[in-house]
Protein backbone atom coordinates (compact mmCIF):
# COMPACT_ATOMS: atom_id res chain seq x y z
CA UNK A 1 0.00 0.00 0.00
CA UNK A 2 1.27 3.45 -0.92
CA UNK A 3 0.26 6.33 1.29
CA UNK A 4 0.86 9.92 0.29
CA UNK A 5 0.56 12.21 3.29
CA UNK A 6 0.00 15.90 2.69
CA UNK A 7 2.62 16.03 -0.04
CA UNK A 8 3.62 19.52 -1.04
CA UNK A 9 6.28 20.78 -3.43
CA UNK A 10 7.09 24.46 -3.70
CA UNK A 11 9.51 26.07 -6.14
CA UNK A 12 10.19 29.57 -4.87
CA UNK A 13 6.99 31.43 -5.78
CA UNK A 14 5.01 28.57 -7.34
CA UNK A 15 3.44 25.59 -5.67
CA UNK A 16 3.67 22.60 -8.00
CA UNK A 17 1.91 20.16 -5.70
CA UNK A 18 -0.32 21.44 -2.94
CA UNK A 19 -1.12 19.27 0.06
CA UNK A 20 -2.00 16.02 -1.70
CA UNK A 21 -3.00 13.00 0.36
CA UNK A 22 -3.90 9.73 -1.28
CA UNK A 23 -3.91 6.02 -0.62
CA UNK A 24 -3.08 3.57 -3.38
CA UNK A 25 -4.24 -0.01 -2.81
CA UNK A 26 -1.76 -2.76 -3.69
CA UNK A 27 -2.17 -4.64 -6.97
CA UNK A 28 -4.24 -1.88 -8.57
CA UNK A 29 -3.68 0.66 -11.29
CA UNK A 30 -4.13 4.28 -10.31
CA UNK A 31 -4.09 6.82 -13.09
CA UNK A 32 -3.31 10.45 -12.33
CA UNK A 33 -4.85 12.72 -14.92
CA UNK A 34 -4.57 16.47 -15.36
CA UNK A 35 -3.58 19.21 -17.74
CA UNK A 36 0.07 20.13 -18.19
CA UNK A 37 1.27 22.07 -15.18
CA UNK A 38 -1.23 20.37 -12.91
CA UNK A 39 1.59 18.91 -10.84
CA UNK A 40 0.89 15.29 -11.76
CA UNK A 41 4.46 14.50 -12.87
CA UNK A 42 5.91 16.22 -9.83
CA UNK A 43 3.60 14.16 -7.62
CA UNK A 44 4.82 10.97 -9.30
CA UNK A 45 8.46 12.00 -9.01
CA UNK A 46 8.07 12.61 -5.30
CA UNK A 47 7.13 8.95 -4.83
CA UNK A 48 10.58 7.74 -5.96
CA UNK A 49 12.19 10.93 -4.67
CA UNK A 50 13.44 12.23 -7.99
CA UNK A 51 11.83 15.31 -6.47
CA UNK A 52 12.15 15.81 -2.73
CA UNK A 53 8.91 17.03 -1.15
CA UNK A 54 8.88 20.40 0.55
CA UNK A 55 6.47 18.96 3.08
CA UNK A 56 4.64 15.72 3.68
CA UNK A 57 5.80 12.15 3.25
CA UNK A 58 5.37 8.99 1.26
CA UNK A 59 4.88 5.65 2.98
CA UNK A 60 5.32 2.36 1.17
CA UNK A 61 3.84 -0.49 3.19
CA UNK A 62 3.97 1.76 6.18
CA UNK A 63 7.65 2.69 5.86
CA UNK A 64 8.63 6.29 5.22
CA UNK A 65 10.58 6.43 1.95
CA UNK A 66 12.79 9.20 3.34
CA UNK A 67 14.44 6.67 5.66
CA UNK A 68 16.54 5.00 2.97
CA UNK A 69 18.99 6.40 0.39
CA UNK A 70 17.10 7.62 -2.68
CA UNK A 71 18.97 5.46 -5.20
CA UNK A 72 18.26 2.31 -3.18
CA UNK A 73 14.60 3.19 -2.96
CA UNK A 74 14.44 3.69 -6.74
CA UNK A 75 15.87 0.26 -7.46
CA UNK A 76 12.78 -1.24 -5.81
CA UNK A 77 10.42 0.92 -7.85
CA UNK A 78 9.93 0.51 -11.59
CA UNK A 79 10.08 3.73 -13.56
CA UNK A 80 9.02 4.30 -17.16
CA UNK A 81 8.79 7.71 -18.79
CA UNK A 82 7.73 9.38 -21.98
CA UNK A 83 10.64 9.42 -24.40
CA UNK A 84 11.63 6.19 -22.65
CA UNK A 85 15.20 7.24 -21.93
CA UNK A 86 16.65 4.01 -23.26
CA UNK A 87 20.43 4.10 -23.05
CA UNK A 88 21.53 4.53 -26.67
CA UNK A 89 24.99 3.03 -26.10
CA UNK A 90 23.65 -0.17 -24.62
CA UNK A 91 21.94 -3.10 -26.30
CA UNK A 92 18.33 -4.01 -25.63
CA UNK A 93 19.41 -6.79 -23.26
CA UNK A 94 21.77 -4.48 -21.38
CA UNK A 95 19.07 -1.84 -21.10
CA UNK A 96 16.62 -4.32 -19.62
CA UNK A 97 19.33 -5.65 -17.29
CA UNK A 98 20.05 -2.20 -15.81
CA UNK A 99 18.36 -2.53 -12.43
CA UNK A 100 19.10 -6.23 -11.84
CA UNK A 101 22.77 -5.40 -12.41
CA UNK A 102 22.60 -2.46 -10.03
CA UNK A 103 21.13 -4.88 -7.50
CA UNK A 104 24.03 -7.26 -8.07
CA UNK A 105 22.08 -10.24 -9.40
CA UNK A 106 24.33 -12.98 -10.69
CA UNK A 107 24.89 -13.24 -14.42
CA UNK A 108 22.74 -16.31 -15.01
CA UNK A 109 19.78 -14.85 -13.16
CA UNK A 110 20.03 -11.56 -15.07
CA UNK A 111 20.22 -13.43 -18.37
CA UNK A 112 17.21 -15.57 -17.51
CA UNK A 113 15.13 -12.61 -16.43
CA UNK A 114 16.01 -10.52 -19.49
CA UNK A 115 15.08 -13.31 -21.87
CA UNK A 116 11.89 -14.03 -20.02
CA UNK A 117 10.85 -10.37 -20.19
CA UNK A 118 11.74 -9.91 -23.84
CA UNK A 119 9.63 -12.95 -24.66
CA UNK A 120 6.77 -11.56 -22.58
CA UNK A 121 6.89 -8.35 -24.62
CA UNK A 122 7.00 -10.19 -27.92
CA UNK A 123 10.61 -9.30 -28.65
CA UNK A 124 12.30 -12.51 -29.72
CA UNK A 125 15.49 -12.57 -27.59
CA UNK A 126 17.47 -14.31 -30.33
CA UNK A 127 16.71 -11.47 -32.68
CA UNK A 128 16.53 -8.39 -30.44
CA UNK A 129 18.69 -8.98 -27.36
CA UNK A 130 21.87 -7.67 -28.97
CA UNK A 131 20.58 -4.81 -31.11
CA UNK A 132 20.75 -1.15 -30.11
CA UNK A 133 17.62 0.86 -29.33
CA UNK A 134 17.89 3.04 -32.43
CA UNK A 135 17.45 -0.05 -34.57
CA UNK A 136 13.98 -0.69 -33.12
CA UNK A 137 10.59 0.74 -34.13
CA UNK A 138 8.81 3.15 -31.79
CA UNK A 139 6.47 0.45 -30.50
CA UNK A 140 9.36 -1.94 -29.83
CA UNK A 141 11.33 0.75 -28.00
CA UNK A 142 8.32 1.44 -25.85
CA UNK A 143 8.06 -2.25 -24.92
CA UNK A 144 11.74 -2.33 -24.05
CA UNK A 145 11.15 0.71 -21.81
CA UNK A 146 8.40 -1.08 -19.89
CA UNK A 147 10.38 -4.34 -19.78
CA UNK A 148 13.32 -2.46 -18.30
CA UNK A 149 11.06 -0.88 -15.68
CA UNK A 150 9.78 -4.32 -14.67
CA UNK A 151 13.15 -6.10 -14.79
CA UNK A 152 13.82 -6.33 -11.07
CA UNK A 153 10.26 -7.47 -10.32
CA UNK A 154 9.24 -4.27 -8.55
CA UNK A 155 6.02 -4.27 -6.56
CA UNK A 156 5.42 -0.69 -7.60
CA UNK A 157 5.69 0.74 -11.09
CA UNK A 158 5.59 4.46 -11.81
CA UNK A 159 4.81 5.54 -15.35
CA UNK A 160 4.92 9.09 -16.65
CA UNK A 161 3.03 9.39 -19.95
CA UNK A 162 4.61 6.13 -21.08
CA UNK A 163 2.54 5.91 -24.25
CA UNK A 164 2.63 9.61 -25.15
CA UNK A 165 4.82 9.16 -28.21
CA UNK A 166 2.87 6.28 -29.75
CA UNK A 167 0.33 6.51 -32.55
CA UNK A 168 -3.28 5.63 -31.60
CA UNK A 169 -3.10 2.03 -32.77
CA UNK A 170 0.16 1.20 -31.03
CA UNK A 171 -1.09 3.06 -28.00
CA UNK A 172 -4.16 0.84 -27.74
CA UNK A 173 -1.97 -2.24 -28.05
CA UNK A 174 0.45 -0.93 -25.40
CA UNK A 175 -2.46 -0.27 -23.03
CA UNK A 176 -3.76 -3.81 -23.51
CA UNK A 177 -0.27 -5.17 -22.87
CA UNK A 178 0.01 -3.15 -19.69
CA UNK A 179 -3.32 -4.42 -18.38
CA UNK A 180 -2.22 -7.96 -19.18
CA UNK A 181 1.15 -7.51 -17.44
CA UNK A 182 -0.55 -5.99 -14.42
CA UNK A 183 -2.96 -8.93 -14.18
CA UNK A 184 -0.13 -11.40 -14.51
CA UNK A 185 2.36 -9.89 -12.05
CA UNK A 186 -0.06 -8.05 -9.77
CA UNK A 187 2.17 -4.98 -9.87
CA UNK A 188 0.85 -1.82 -8.27
CA UNK A 189 0.95 0.83 -10.98
CA UNK A 190 0.67 4.59 -10.75
CA UNK A 191 0.41 6.09 -14.21
CA UNK A 192 0.38 9.77 -15.10
CA UNK A 193 -1.42 10.87 -18.25
CA UNK A 194 -3.11 13.92 -19.74
CA UNK A 195 -5.45 11.67 -21.70
CA UNK A 196 -8.73 11.14 -19.86
CA UNK A 197 -9.63 8.19 -22.10
CA UNK A 198 -6.39 6.47 -21.17
CA UNK A 199 -6.99 7.28 -17.50
CA UNK A 200 -10.44 5.68 -17.65
CA UNK A 201 -9.33 2.72 -19.66
CA UNK A 202 -6.44 1.74 -17.40
CA UNK A 203 -7.31 2.99 -13.96
CA UNK A 204 -9.01 1.05 -11.22
CA UNK A 205 -8.89 4.43 -9.57
CA UNK A 206 -8.50 7.78 -11.23
CA UNK A 207 -6.96 10.81 -9.53
CA UNK A 208 -7.74 14.17 -11.09
CA UNK A 209 -5.27 16.98 -10.49
CA UNK A 210 -5.43 20.64 -11.33
CA UNK A 211 -3.25 23.53 -10.21
CA UNK A 212 -1.26 21.25 -7.92
CA UNK A 213 -4.33 20.07 -6.02
CA UNK A 214 -5.94 16.66 -6.00
CA UNK A 215 -9.57 17.33 -6.93
CA UNK A 216 -10.91 13.80 -6.81
CA UNK A 217 -9.56 10.29 -6.36
CA UNK A 218 -12.14 7.63 -6.96
CA UNK A 219 -13.39 4.79 -9.10
CA UNK A 220 -13.85 5.92 -12.70
CA UNK A 221 -17.61 5.45 -12.60
CA UNK A 222 -17.85 7.71 -9.56
CA UNK A 223 -16.02 10.45 -11.44
CA UNK A 224 -18.79 10.33 -14.01
CA UNK A 225 -21.73 10.08 -11.65
CA UNK A 226 -20.47 12.14 -8.74
CA UNK A 227 -17.87 14.64 -9.95
CA UNK A 228 -16.44 16.48 -6.96
CA UNK A 229 -15.56 19.61 -8.86
CA UNK A 230 -16.69 21.43 -12.03
CA UNK A 231 -13.26 20.75 -13.49
CA UNK A 232 -13.80 17.02 -13.08
CA UNK A 233 -17.13 17.08 -14.92
CA UNK A 234 -15.56 19.20 -17.63
CA UNK A 235 -12.69 16.74 -17.95
CA UNK A 236 -15.01 13.75 -18.03
CA UNK A 237 -17.09 15.51 -20.69
CA UNK A 238 -20.70 16.54 -20.18
CA UNK A 239 -21.80 15.05 -23.50
CA UNK A 240 -20.46 11.55 -23.10
CA UNK A 241 -21.07 10.64 -19.50
CA UNK A 242 -23.32 7.72 -20.37
CA UNK A 243 -20.86 6.39 -22.92
CA UNK A 244 -18.05 6.57 -20.41
CA UNK A 245 -20.05 4.55 -17.92
CA UNK A 246 -20.80 1.94 -20.56
CA UNK A 247 -17.14 1.74 -21.50
CA UNK A 248 -16.35 0.70 -17.92
CA UNK A 249 -18.59 -2.39 -17.91
CA UNK A 250 -17.57 -5.60 -19.71
CA UNK A 251 -20.41 -6.97 -21.82
CA UNK A 252 -19.77 -10.45 -20.46
CA UNK A 253 -20.72 -9.23 -16.98
CA UNK A 254 -24.20 -8.22 -18.11
CA UNK A 255 -24.85 -11.02 -20.59
CA UNK A 256 -27.74 -13.39 -20.06
CA UNK A 257 -28.11 -16.98 -21.22
CA UNK A 258 -29.25 -17.90 -24.70
CA UNK A 259 -28.17 -17.11 -28.25
CA UNK A 260 -30.00 -14.51 -30.37
CA UNK A 261 -30.18 -13.24 -33.95
CA UNK A 262 -27.72 -10.36 -34.21
CA UNK A 263 -24.08 -9.35 -34.24
CA UNK A 264 -21.49 -11.22 -32.20
CA UNK A 265 -19.15 -9.39 -29.85
CA UNK A 266 -15.73 -10.59 -28.72
CA UNK A 267 -15.48 -11.64 -25.09
CA UNK A 268 -13.43 -8.56 -24.23
CA UNK A 269 -16.07 -6.10 -25.51
CA UNK A 270 -17.45 -3.40 -23.21
CA UNK A 271 -21.05 -2.27 -23.17
CA UNK A 272 -19.97 0.78 -25.14
CA UNK A 273 -18.80 -1.47 -27.94
CA UNK A 274 -22.01 -3.48 -27.60
CA UNK A 275 -24.07 -0.31 -27.99
CA UNK A 276 -22.08 0.67 -31.05
CA UNK A 277 -22.65 -2.75 -32.61
CA UNK A 278 -26.37 -2.63 -31.86
CA UNK A 279 -26.87 0.87 -33.26
CA UNK A 280 -24.82 0.00 -36.32
CA UNK A 281 -26.60 -3.27 -37.08
CA UNK A 282 -30.08 -2.19 -36.01
CA UNK A 283 -30.44 -5.40 -33.99
CA UNK A 284 -32.10 -5.49 -30.58
CA UNK A 285 -29.60 -7.89 -29.05
CA UNK A 286 -26.05 -9.10 -29.61
CA UNK A 287 -24.27 -12.33 -28.74
CA UNK A 288 -21.24 -12.21 -26.48
CA UNK A 289 -18.53 -14.76 -27.15
CA UNK A 290 -16.78 -16.36 -24.19
CA UNK A 291 -13.11 -17.14 -23.95
CA UNK A 292 -13.59 -20.41 -25.84
CA UNK A 293 -15.47 -18.65 -28.64
CA UNK A 294 -18.92 -20.09 -27.80
CA UNK A 295 -21.80 -17.65 -28.27
CA UNK A 296 -24.56 -18.89 -26.01
CA UNK A 297 -24.97 -15.63 -24.10
CA UNK A 298 -26.28 -12.26 -25.21
CA UNK A 299 -26.95 -8.67 -24.20
CA UNK A 300 -30.07 -6.74 -25.16
CA UNK A 301 -30.28 -3.10 -26.12
CA UNK A 302 -32.47 -2.45 -23.10
CA UNK A 303 -29.93 -3.93 -20.67
CA UNK A 304 -27.16 -1.90 -22.26
CA UNK A 305 -29.13 1.32 -21.97
CA UNK A 306 -29.99 0.57 -18.36
CA UNK A 307 -26.30 0.52 -17.45
CA UNK A 308 -25.68 3.91 -18.96
CA UNK A 309 -28.21 5.58 -16.71
CA UNK A 310 -27.01 7.59 -13.81
CA UNK A 311 -29.41 5.67 -11.59
CA UNK A 312 -27.49 2.48 -12.23
CA UNK A 313 -24.53 3.72 -10.27
Amino acid at each position, binding site marked *: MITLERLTKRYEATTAVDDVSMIVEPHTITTVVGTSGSGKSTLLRMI*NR*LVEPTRGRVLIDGIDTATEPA*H*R*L*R*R*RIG*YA*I*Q*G*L*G*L*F*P*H*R*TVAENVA*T*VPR*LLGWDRARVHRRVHELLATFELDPARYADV*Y*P*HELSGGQQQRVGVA*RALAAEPNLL*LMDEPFGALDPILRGKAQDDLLEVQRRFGTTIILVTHDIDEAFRLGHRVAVMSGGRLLQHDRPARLVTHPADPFVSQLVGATERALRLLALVPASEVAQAGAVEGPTLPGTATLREALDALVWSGAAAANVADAAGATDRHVTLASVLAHGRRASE
Partner: protein
Amino acid sequence: MKHLPTLLRGTALVLLAAMLLAPQRFAPVFAPLNEFGAPAIYDQGDLLSLTAWHLLTVVVAAAASTVVAVALGVFVTRRAGAPFLPLSRTLINVGQTFPPVAVLAVAVPLVGFGQWPTLIALFAYGLLPIFENTIAGMDACPPSVCDAADGMGMSPLQRLVRVELPLAMPLIFEGVRLSLVINVGTATLGSTVAAKGLGEVIIAGLLSNNTAFVLQGGLLTGLMAILLYDGTRLIERRFVRAGHA
Protein backbone atom coordinates in the same frame (compact mmCIF):
# COMPACT_ATOMS: atom_id res chain seq x y z
CA MET B 1 37.13 4.88 -54.01
CA LYS B 2 36.26 3.08 -50.78
CA HIS B 3 39.88 2.21 -50.20
CA LEU B 4 41.24 5.69 -50.86
CA PRO B 5 41.54 6.66 -47.16
CA THR B 6 43.35 3.42 -46.36
CA LEU B 7 45.62 3.98 -49.32
CA LEU B 8 46.48 7.54 -48.29
CA ARG B 9 47.01 6.46 -44.71
CA GLY B 10 49.34 3.69 -45.82
CA THR B 11 51.27 6.03 -48.08
CA ALA B 12 51.76 8.57 -45.28
CA LEU B 13 52.95 5.84 -42.93
CA VAL B 14 55.38 4.37 -45.45
CA LEU B 15 56.71 7.83 -46.33
CA LEU B 16 57.29 8.72 -42.70
CA ALA B 17 59.00 5.40 -41.99
CA ALA B 18 61.23 5.71 -45.04
CA MET B 19 62.28 9.27 -44.20
CA LEU B 20 63.22 8.21 -40.68
CA LEU B 21 64.90 4.89 -41.38
CA ALA B 22 66.74 5.73 -44.58
CA PRO B 23 66.97 9.54 -44.69
CA GLN B 24 69.94 9.57 -47.07
CA ARG B 25 67.79 8.00 -49.78
CA PHE B 26 65.91 11.28 -49.97
CA ALA B 27 69.02 13.39 -50.56
CA PRO B 28 68.39 13.68 -54.31
CA VAL B 29 64.88 15.00 -53.58
CA PHE B 30 66.00 17.73 -51.22
CA ALA B 31 69.39 18.57 -52.76
CA PRO B 32 68.04 20.90 -55.50
CA LEU B 33 66.68 23.19 -52.78
CA ASN B 34 70.12 24.07 -51.50
CA GLU B 35 72.92 26.04 -53.08
CA PHE B 36 76.66 25.66 -52.65
CA GLY B 37 76.44 21.97 -51.84
CA ALA B 38 75.10 22.42 -48.32
CA PRO B 39 73.92 19.12 -46.77
CA ALA B 40 70.43 18.18 -47.97
CA ILE B 41 69.61 15.81 -45.11
CA TYR B 42 69.74 16.91 -41.49
CA ASP B 43 73.02 15.59 -40.14
CA GLN B 44 73.31 17.16 -36.71
CA GLY B 45 71.15 14.58 -34.97
CA ASP B 46 69.26 11.36 -35.46
CA LEU B 47 65.90 12.08 -37.15
CA LEU B 48 64.35 8.95 -35.67
CA SER B 49 65.16 9.88 -32.09
CA LEU B 50 64.09 13.51 -32.63
CA THR B 51 60.75 12.28 -33.98
CA ALA B 52 60.35 9.92 -31.04
CA TRP B 53 61.06 12.76 -28.59
CA HIS B 54 58.63 15.00 -30.44
CA LEU B 55 55.89 12.37 -30.30
CA LEU B 56 56.56 11.57 -26.67
CA THR B 57 56.39 15.24 -25.67
CA VAL B 58 53.13 15.76 -27.52
CA VAL B 59 51.51 12.62 -26.15
CA VAL B 60 52.57 13.23 -22.56
CA ALA B 61 51.32 16.82 -22.72
CA ALA B 62 48.02 15.74 -24.28
CA ALA B 63 47.58 13.01 -21.68
CA ALA B 64 48.05 15.55 -18.90
CA SER B 65 45.68 18.00 -20.61
CA THR B 66 43.10 15.23 -21.00
CA VAL B 67 43.19 14.20 -17.37
CA VAL B 68 42.88 17.78 -16.12
CA ALA B 69 40.40 19.03 -18.72
CA VAL B 70 38.07 16.02 -18.48
CA ALA B 71 38.14 16.07 -14.69
CA LEU B 72 37.42 19.78 -14.66
CA GLY B 73 34.77 19.47 -17.36
CA VAL B 74 33.01 16.76 -15.37
CA PHE B 75 33.30 18.75 -12.16
CA VAL B 76 31.75 21.95 -13.51
CA THR B 77 28.83 20.01 -14.99
CA ARG B 78 27.97 18.51 -11.57
CA ARG B 79 25.60 20.51 -9.42
CA ALA B 80 28.29 21.19 -6.83
CA GLY B 81 30.76 22.37 -9.46
CA ALA B 82 28.45 24.53 -11.56
CA PRO B 83 29.42 27.80 -9.83
CA PHE B 84 33.01 27.19 -10.94
CA LEU B 85 32.17 26.98 -14.62
CA PRO B 86 32.82 30.66 -15.50
CA LEU B 87 36.09 30.72 -13.55
CA SER B 88 37.35 27.47 -15.07
CA ARG B 89 36.40 28.62 -18.52
CA THR B 90 38.28 31.88 -18.08
CA LEU B 91 41.41 30.15 -16.80
CA ILE B 92 41.43 27.65 -19.61
CA ASN B 93 40.81 30.34 -22.18
CA VAL B 94 43.84 32.17 -20.85
CA GLY B 95 45.83 28.98 -21.47
CA GLN B 96 44.71 29.10 -25.07
CA THR B 97 45.06 32.86 -25.61
CA PHE B 98 48.48 33.16 -24.05
CA PRO B 99 50.88 32.39 -26.95
CA PRO B 100 52.94 29.21 -26.39
CA VAL B 101 56.09 31.18 -27.14
CA ALA B 102 55.26 33.49 -24.27
CA VAL B 103 54.62 30.51 -22.01
CA LEU B 104 58.05 29.18 -22.96
CA ALA B 105 59.63 32.52 -22.13
CA VAL B 106 57.97 32.57 -18.74
CA ALA B 107 58.60 28.88 -18.00
CA VAL B 108 62.33 28.78 -18.78
CA PRO B 109 63.42 30.90 -15.82
CA LEU B 110 61.26 28.70 -13.58
CA VAL B 111 62.05 25.19 -14.76
CA GLY B 112 65.13 25.68 -16.92
CA PHE B 113 65.76 24.77 -20.54
CA GLY B 114 64.78 21.46 -22.11
CA GLN B 115 61.60 19.37 -22.30
CA TRP B 116 59.80 20.79 -19.27
CA PRO B 117 58.91 24.28 -20.51
CA THR B 118 57.60 22.74 -23.74
CA LEU B 119 55.45 20.30 -21.82
CA ILE B 120 54.00 23.15 -19.78
CA ALA B 121 53.24 25.24 -22.87
CA LEU B 122 51.64 22.33 -24.71
CA PHE B 123 49.67 21.30 -21.65
CA ALA B 124 48.18 24.77 -21.26
CA TYR B 125 47.52 25.10 -24.96
CA GLY B 126 45.80 21.74 -25.24
CA LEU B 127 43.31 22.17 -22.41
CA LEU B 128 40.66 24.23 -24.16
CA PRO B 129 39.41 21.87 -26.88
CA ILE B 130 39.18 18.96 -24.46
CA PHE B 131 37.51 21.00 -21.73
CA GLU B 132 34.89 22.52 -24.02
CA ASN B 133 34.15 19.21 -25.69
CA THR B 134 33.77 17.47 -22.35
CA ILE B 135 31.20 20.06 -21.28
CA ALA B 136 29.39 19.78 -24.60
CA GLY B 137 29.42 15.99 -24.24
CA MET B 138 27.97 16.12 -20.74
CA ASP B 139 25.25 18.53 -21.85
CA ALA B 140 24.48 16.25 -24.77
CA CYS B 141 23.04 13.54 -22.52
CA PRO B 142 19.34 13.61 -23.48
CA PRO B 143 17.26 14.68 -20.45
CA SER B 144 15.06 11.59 -20.68
CA VAL B 145 18.15 9.35 -20.61
CA CYS B 146 19.61 11.06 -17.56
CA ASP B 147 16.21 11.05 -15.90
CA ALA B 148 15.88 7.33 -16.59
CA ALA B 149 19.35 6.70 -15.15
CA ASP B 150 18.31 8.46 -11.93
CA GLY B 151 14.92 6.80 -11.90
CA MET B 152 16.48 3.33 -12.25
CA GLY B 153 18.42 3.97 -9.08
CA MET B 154 21.90 4.76 -10.32
CA SER B 155 24.00 6.73 -7.86
CA PRO B 156 25.47 9.96 -9.28
CA LEU B 157 28.80 8.22 -9.82
CA GLN B 158 27.20 5.27 -11.58
CA ARG B 159 25.25 7.62 -13.80
CA LEU B 160 28.46 9.44 -14.71
CA VAL B 161 30.49 6.32 -15.43
CA ARG B 162 27.83 4.16 -17.04
CA VAL B 163 25.79 6.71 -18.95
CA GLU B 164 27.16 10.23 -19.23
CA LEU B 165 30.82 9.51 -19.98
CA PRO B 166 30.13 6.81 -22.56
CA LEU B 167 27.69 9.12 -24.31
CA ALA B 168 30.17 12.02 -24.19
CA MET B 169 33.05 9.85 -25.40
CA PRO B 170 32.88 10.73 -29.11
CA LEU B 171 33.03 14.44 -28.32
CA ILE B 172 35.81 14.03 -25.77
CA PHE B 173 37.81 12.02 -28.27
CA GLU B 174 37.31 14.77 -30.82
CA GLY B 175 38.73 17.28 -28.33
CA VAL B 176 41.75 15.12 -27.55
CA ARG B 177 42.38 14.63 -31.24
CA LEU B 178 42.21 18.36 -31.93
CA SER B 179 44.53 19.07 -29.07
CA LEU B 180 47.04 16.42 -30.22
CA VAL B 181 47.15 17.74 -33.76
CA ILE B 182 47.54 21.36 -32.69
CA ASN B 183 50.32 20.33 -30.34
CA VAL B 184 52.30 18.41 -32.94
CA GLY B 185 52.77 21.72 -34.75
CA THR B 186 53.18 23.83 -31.64
CA ALA B 187 55.80 21.48 -30.19
CA THR B 188 58.29 22.58 -32.86
CA LEU B 189 58.57 25.85 -30.91
CA GLY B 190 60.01 23.87 -28.03
CA SER B 191 63.32 23.61 -29.83
CA THR B 192 63.90 27.33 -29.17
CA VAL B 193 64.36 26.34 -25.53
CA ALA B 194 66.41 23.24 -26.26
CA ALA B 195 63.64 20.65 -26.10
CA LYS B 196 64.39 17.65 -28.26
CA GLY B 197 62.04 17.47 -31.21
CA LEU B 198 61.61 18.10 -34.90
CA GLY B 199 61.67 21.86 -34.30
CA GLU B 200 65.43 21.40 -34.06
CA VAL B 201 65.58 20.50 -37.75
CA ILE B 202 63.46 23.46 -38.80
CA ILE B 203 65.36 25.93 -36.66
CA ALA B 204 68.71 24.60 -37.88
CA GLY B 205 67.46 25.14 -41.42
CA LEU B 206 66.30 28.67 -40.70
CA LEU B 207 69.58 29.63 -39.04
CA SER B 208 71.77 28.28 -41.81
CA ASN B 209 69.45 29.28 -44.62
CA ASN B 210 69.00 25.58 -45.45
CA THR B 211 65.58 25.20 -47.12
CA ALA B 212 65.96 21.43 -47.30
CA PHE B 213 66.17 21.18 -43.49
CA VAL B 214 63.11 23.40 -43.03
CA LEU B 215 61.12 21.35 -45.49
CA GLN B 216 62.22 18.06 -43.93
CA GLY B 217 61.25 19.14 -40.43
CA GLY B 218 57.95 20.51 -41.69
CA LEU B 219 57.14 17.42 -43.70
CA LEU B 220 57.88 15.03 -40.84
CA THR B 221 55.80 17.12 -38.46
CA GLY B 222 52.92 17.24 -40.93
CA LEU B 223 52.98 13.51 -41.55
CA MET B 224 53.01 12.88 -37.83
CA ALA B 225 49.98 15.12 -37.33
CA ILE B 226 48.03 13.33 -40.03
CA LEU B 227 48.90 9.90 -38.72
CA LEU B 228 48.08 10.86 -35.14
CA TYR B 229 44.71 12.22 -36.22
CA ASP B 230 44.00 9.00 -38.03
CA GLY B 231 45.40 6.77 -35.31
CA THR B 232 43.16 8.24 -32.65
CA ARG B 233 40.20 7.56 -34.93
CA LEU B 234 41.11 3.90 -34.99
CA ILE B 235 41.48 3.79 -31.23
CA GLU B 236 38.17 5.58 -30.82
CA ARG B 237 36.39 3.06 -32.96
CA ARG B 238 37.49 0.33 -30.60
CA PHE B 239 36.39 2.22 -27.52
CA VAL B 240 33.18 3.87 -28.58
CA ARG B 241 30.46 1.38 -29.15
CA ALA B 242 28.38 1.03 -32.24
CA GLY B 243 25.22 2.14 -30.49
CA HIS B 244 25.51 5.80 -31.14
CA ALA B 245 26.36 5.90 -34.75
